[in-house]
């Protein structure tokens, strides 16, 4: 197992290095932060801009290759991912934002998985009955409605509740109210901020798991081995829950494994709409702000997350499926 991990790890490190380097070259040759600086008022002289950029390690006069070598050396020797044009350090900014993304998505992803898989099983057991039709229709609706619209609808709902009650129960944007004393009041404030994004992301997210779990379970409900289990003396429902369920969970487990790292990578729409400054919104902002180092860092991070997901998916499969052996 360790050998397998080491082998996979080395392969992925190599791949991450390649994508990140390619990403850096693309960013450094297309993003020109100096141009943005010159639109400031009062307009700085080109020399001033170049000087300030040079101080932040973003010298526009160096060739892409020279900057790449400089950037890479800093990462390898000091684990320093450089600075943004506004002077912020990527390392510090990144640490804050990962934590924000994680907090935003953690609860909702756990809820999404549990509700999605549970409803999938429930609806498969009642195929074509009323409950199944309602649940599965909802899931397809959640598929079709674009996430931002769904988020806005949930926000509107929360605002409506606030207005009906006449008191602000839910916050529809932001992470927390600044200046609160630590303790009970802060905890309630946190919940009030958490509720709306969590509900919104969960409501939109579970549909895909419900559809997948329902489909895979139905594929196995009439499998030969379920019939064998019934022939042993299990009732239909017992045979399904003991035999078909575990087999149908194999492909679902794989997709779950890919989802978990995505928690840390965040999501652009949710972060923007709920005003949580996480990694997702940062990556988009970096491009519009001509921020070479931030754009490359988010890209590198995305690759790492993907590699982790792939390894986790392999793990998950070996865990639930004895036919797969790690070599």
């Amino acid at each position: 197992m360790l050998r397998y991990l080491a082998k996979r790890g080395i392969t992925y490190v190599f791949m991450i290095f390649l994508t990140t380097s390619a990403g850096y070259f693309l960013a450094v040759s297309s993003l020109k932060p100096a141009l943005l600086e010159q639109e400031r008022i009062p307009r700085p002289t080109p020399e001033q801009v170049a000087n300030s950029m040079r101080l932040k390690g973003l010298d526009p006069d160096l060739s892409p290759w020279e900057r790449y070598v400089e950037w890479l050396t800093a990462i390898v020797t000091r684990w320093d991912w450089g600075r943004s044009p506004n002077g912020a350090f990527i390392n510090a900014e990144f640490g804050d934002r990962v934590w924000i993304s994680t907090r935003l998505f953690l609860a909702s992803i756990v809820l999404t998985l549990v509700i999605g898989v549970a409803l999938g099983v429930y609806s498969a057991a009642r195929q074509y009955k009323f409950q199944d039709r309602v649940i599965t229709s909802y899931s397809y609706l959640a598929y079709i409605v674009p996430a931002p619209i769904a988020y806005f609808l949930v926000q509107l709902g929360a605002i409506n509740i606030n207005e009906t009650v006449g008191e602000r129960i839910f916050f529809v944007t932001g992470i927390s109210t600044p200046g609160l004393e630590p303790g009970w009041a802060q905890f309630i404030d946190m919940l009030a901020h958490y509720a709306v994004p969590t509900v919104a992301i969960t409501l939109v997210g579970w549909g895909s798991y419900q559809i997948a779990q329902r489909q895979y379970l139905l594929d196995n409900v009439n499998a030969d081995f379920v019939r064998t289990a019934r022939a042993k003396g299990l009732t239909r429902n017992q045979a399904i829950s003991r035999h078909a369920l575990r087999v149908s969970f194999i492909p679902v487990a794989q997709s779950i494994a890919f989802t978990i790292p995505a928690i840390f990578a965040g999501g652009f729409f949710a972060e923007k709409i709920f005003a949580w400054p996480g990694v997702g919104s940062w990556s988009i902002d970096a491009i519009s702000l001509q921020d070479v180092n931030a754009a490359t860092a988010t890209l590198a991070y995305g690759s790492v997350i993907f590699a982790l997901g792939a390894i986790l998916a392999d793990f998950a499969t070996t865990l639930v499926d004895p036919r797969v052996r790690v070599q």
Partner: protein
Amino acid sequence: MSSEIAAGRVEQPQSPAERLHVAGLHAPSDAILSVRDLNVRFNTENGIVHAVRGVDFDLMPGKTLGIVGESGSGKSVTSLAIMGLLPTTAEVTGSVRLKGKELLGLSDKAMCEYRGNELAMVFQDPLSSLTPVYTVGTQIIEALTIHNPGMSKQTKEARAVELLAMVGIPSPKERLRAFPHEFSGGMRQRVMIAIAIANNPRVLIADEPTTALDVTIQAQVLEVLHTAQEETGAAVVMITHDLGVVAGMADDIMVMYAGRPVETGAVDDIYYNPRMPYTMGLLGAVPRVDVAEKSSLVPIEGMPPNLIHPPTGCSFAPRCPLASDACLEGEPALAPVPDGPLHLAACIKSGSLGGDVDVLDVFAAPPVPVSRFDAIPREERATVLQLKDVRKHFPLTRGALLKKRIGTVKAVDGLTFDIREGECFSIVGESGSGKTTTLLEIMEFHKDQDGEVVIGGISNKKAADARAKSAMRRELQMVFQDPTGALDPRFTVYEVLAEPLQNAGMEKPAIRKRIMELMKLVGLQPDHVNRFPNQFSGGQRQRIGIARALAVNPKLVVLDEPVSALDVSVQAGVINLLDKLRAELGLSYLLVAHDLSVVRHISNRVAVMYLGKIVEIGEVDRVFDNPRHPYTRALLSAIPVPDPQLERTRERIILQGDLPSPLDAPKGCNFATRCPVFAALPKTKQEKCLTLEPPLLPVTPSPAAQTLAADPLPALDQRFACFFPDGEIDEDMLVVHEAADHHAP
């Protein structure tokens, strides 16, 4: 003679309810399982399919009932109805009594009391019938836990080990922790049997338990079923389409057609004295592996009826050569035939049929076709295909980027044979023996191949450019196993047949003419050319496949399992057609088949393959009547024959284990690991088998015959690769069932 089948002994009352009542009253009280007037209807989009229509039988403790029929005859549905495993949408009526207790109408929960306990079942496909994510131990123990909640963990585990040992799984204690995918098909079927007999069932239903397995493995599994029945004393319902499989096992037979039993009786009555034309046809349609004399097979024309529309007359009448107007007036009831009250047949003419009526006359089997080449000695005929030392080795590698060779799979290892004009040459062997790879190597026809392939005088070594290849394709054509998969569903028959002709550069009017000829040649109506493949039955589709192969007038047709996907009655028609075409057109065949009975019927010469090598080759009657190689002997003895008396007394060589992985092949003789002769050899002789590879040597006439003959006798057309062909067979691998048990009349 046993007295299991008692239904219908009384006069047929009018209404089913009355009939049921009477039958129930007369049911023998000691029957373990009584089925009365079982009817199953499925509501489908096209209407109500009446899949089982009035099945009656009684099963006595410890006896075996064989239910025989073709696909769609309702035999599997009957068994699932008894088990209560049909989908809830199926409408089941009638009565199923287990030890007098009614099972039909019980809830799923109430049925669980019986399922797996007193009533157990073994299914057809062992590969998909075990849950892939649990160990076999877990799955066996589960069956014990359900019905013995109080049993301790140790007891259950000990019982599971005992069960695995009983079904012949080596080192059962360790194998308990193995997963199903670590077992071969035959081994998995043994596990299925172990699960079924875990709670000592009174009734064991086996639904085509060996259909998916190789003949040698089939013999092993049948043996295990036999042991299981002896150990548990269970009554067995054996469902099969293969009349050979049940001949030796069953006490009674029920033949089903179109959802109804059409003939029931003791096994000897059914096999030796059939009274229903369908049974006669089925028996005549099966080629025999033990009979050298050549006669045509009995084809049963037509298709089984569609069960959406209730038949008004005898359901077999449209296919029956004896049908008269009287047959169309109401379905004949199952009634006793003149020779005994326990033999029933659903035919108004059963009185005039019987043991001395020749089935070949009844069904007007075509005469045995004679080829113009039959009179010419083999040596004087032209060679159409020649293989010289053809090899195909697959490297076995490990690693994703840097491949490391860890071994070689010798799929085909030095094949040499030739096929002459007008002859049928067959390759037989278990799956994994390299039959299909051999065909692929011939079709490949490439310069870089290891070994020489000569097709119609064109060698792959000398002329392998596109022109030579296209000339070669005109010499050699192929017919595939699955007729449905081999025909493009969006091509009409005309397009299917026109394609090879267009490739050959033929003009349009000529193509049209040729297609009409071909349709007639393979026995299809020429005006059906504009239909699509799905409008034909399986047998007709295979005929289209044959017509396509013949379109360009090849000399050699490669047949890859051409009839294995077809039902027995349809298979006979296709085999007869192949026989006829060979004679009329002077074709040569290269046939690959796992069914040795078919091979014997159709071939002139045969090669037996084992792990990529030919172990015995020669004239078919010589090899089958006087097999020299122990593997050939084992293969032949594993094939069940549709002859109950012969089956009961026959000696059988049961090979141990499965075909070994080609990686583990021994250095000397490939077969040594499973060889029944090798096992009985003294150590000194065993050494020779393990270190030296036996060469393929001709059988020489015995010295006595040599001295008697005036001229020196020529070597016979039979060669084999074994050092000790006359060695004793190891006793553990020889099985003879006692002839003098309950079967004696």
